[in-house]
């Protein structure tokens, strides 16, 4: 009995030790100027980007095996990091997890197929692309935020004065307090949720093919709203001032259009789906 337990413990110890030996850490530092460009390409694994305290780019990487290495290159004000898969690497052994610190005004481009992508507290442009990567961007201002994913969930939180474009095939997209001159989401089958007030004088286009679209807004929102689902239903909990002219027929239950709040500062909001449901909801006090 004792010998069996001992054998188990030894086996666990060997596995843990093997894992620890296989994992390794790397750290790279780069000095950059204002508005640097930083690119991280990582086939397998997560990438998280946060602001650094000075004009340096710090890359902390955890490599999950010796079948992957990191290529790094600085060319002037641009830093390129790439996980380089070696022969025999797969999604486990080729995995690298990155934590990257960049100057807050840096432009950041991140690619990962399977790991999560995260960027926060930046005011440079952010471009994130991943096949199955979950994407999380928060506290970004005065910047372009471009996201492309296949089925990863996309969460954007507190993006101010952003030029936001999200393309998702089947992942759900959630926007909270996202405002700016252009906020555009296109999805094939993913659900689109917007929580916020549509800012001032921006253009908001939420489009899905079969995914539902739900916008939850406070009653004091100023917006010129039009919504139509070709084959799905539309619901509107907020009384809108009807418009005299619309570019589509207002079939009850399939479309609505109207204005709310102060026209002078109103944003243009277009909610469009082919077969998904569209719901414009009034925000409750709790939300």
């Amino acid at each position, binding site marked *: 009995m004792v010998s069996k337990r001992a054998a188990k413990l030894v086996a666990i110890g060997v596995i843990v030790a093997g894992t620890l030996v296989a994992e390794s850490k790397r750290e790279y530092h780069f000095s950059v100027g204002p508005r640097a460009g930083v690119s991280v*390409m990582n*086939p397998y694994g997560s990438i998280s980007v946060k602001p650094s305290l000075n004009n340096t780019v710090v890359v902390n990487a955890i490599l999950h095996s010796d079948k992957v290495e990191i290529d790094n290159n600085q060319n002037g004000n641009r830093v390129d990091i*790439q996980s380089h898969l070696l022969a025999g690497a*797969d*999604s486990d052994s080729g995995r690298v997890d990155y934590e990257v610190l960049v100057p807050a005004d840096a432009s950041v481009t991140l*690619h990962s*197929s*399977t790991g999560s992508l995260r960027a926060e507290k930046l005011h440079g442009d952010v471009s994130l*692309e991943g*096949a*199955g990567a979950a994407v999380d961007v928060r506290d970004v201002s005065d910047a372009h935020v471009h996201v*492309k994913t*296949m*089925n990863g969930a996309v969460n954007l939180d507190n993006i101010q004065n952003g030029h936001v*474009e999200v*393309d998702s*095939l*089947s992942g759900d997209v959630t926007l909270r307090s996202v405002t700016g001159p252009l906020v*555009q989401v*296109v999805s*094939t*089958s993913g659900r689109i949720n917007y929580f916020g007030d549509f800012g001032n004088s921006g253009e908001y286009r939420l*489009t899905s*093919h*079969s995914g539902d679209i739900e916008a939850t807004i406070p009653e004091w929102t100023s917006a010129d709203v039009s919504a*139509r689902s*070709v*084959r799905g239903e539309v619901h509107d909990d907020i009384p809108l001032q009807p418009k005299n002219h619309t*570019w*589509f027929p207002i079939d009850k239950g399939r479309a609505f259009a109207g204005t709310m709040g102060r026209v002078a500062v109103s944003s243009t909001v277009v909610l*469009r789906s*082919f*077969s998904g449901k569209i719901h414009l909801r009034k925000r409750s006090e709790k939300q």
Partner: protein
Amino acid sequence: MNCVELHQSLAEVEDGGSVERLAHLRACPACSALVRDLNQIAAAASRLQAADEPSPRVWNSIEVALRQEGLIRLQRAGRPLITTFSRWGAARWLVPAAAMLLLALGISVRRELRPNPSAQQASVAVPVANPSDLNDDDLRQEIANNTPEIKTLYEENLRQVNDSIRDAQGVVDETPNDEDARRSLMDAYQQKAMLFELAMDHSAE
């Protein structure tokens, strides 16, 4: 001129057609079928209303994708590509469709240029004429070396985007004047183009 050179010459949007190109088209049924498909798209595009101009974002995405693939070159100063396309009137709709074709063509040409020791094939895979399943096999080739999970992911999304194209195309056929249905169809094609982009980026990593 061979098939690959002809495919590359298709990106020369201002080229009316050289003697070599015409000679090759006469001799090569595959390439002549391809050019015929492009002409059919152009004809279909001319039936769309000029008012339905795609957003600037569409042009930007197409331009970036075509440049990345090396299918177009930098334009002369003061003459942006978007302006060039905008002068085409109703046929502007040709460009997104053609861009889809050219992107897929890029993959096809790239694949052709890769050494293939198992066969000395001279023929070039011709993209499928039907836009609703445009070059799906090329996309599959592009992701062939990925893990089964990734391949499944692409297959599932390819199926979804093809379904969405079919759905929208059905309504456009029933009600050609439904602007939202047409936009849905355009969006569906854009989504498919994005899937190709992701696959190409993925294979390049």
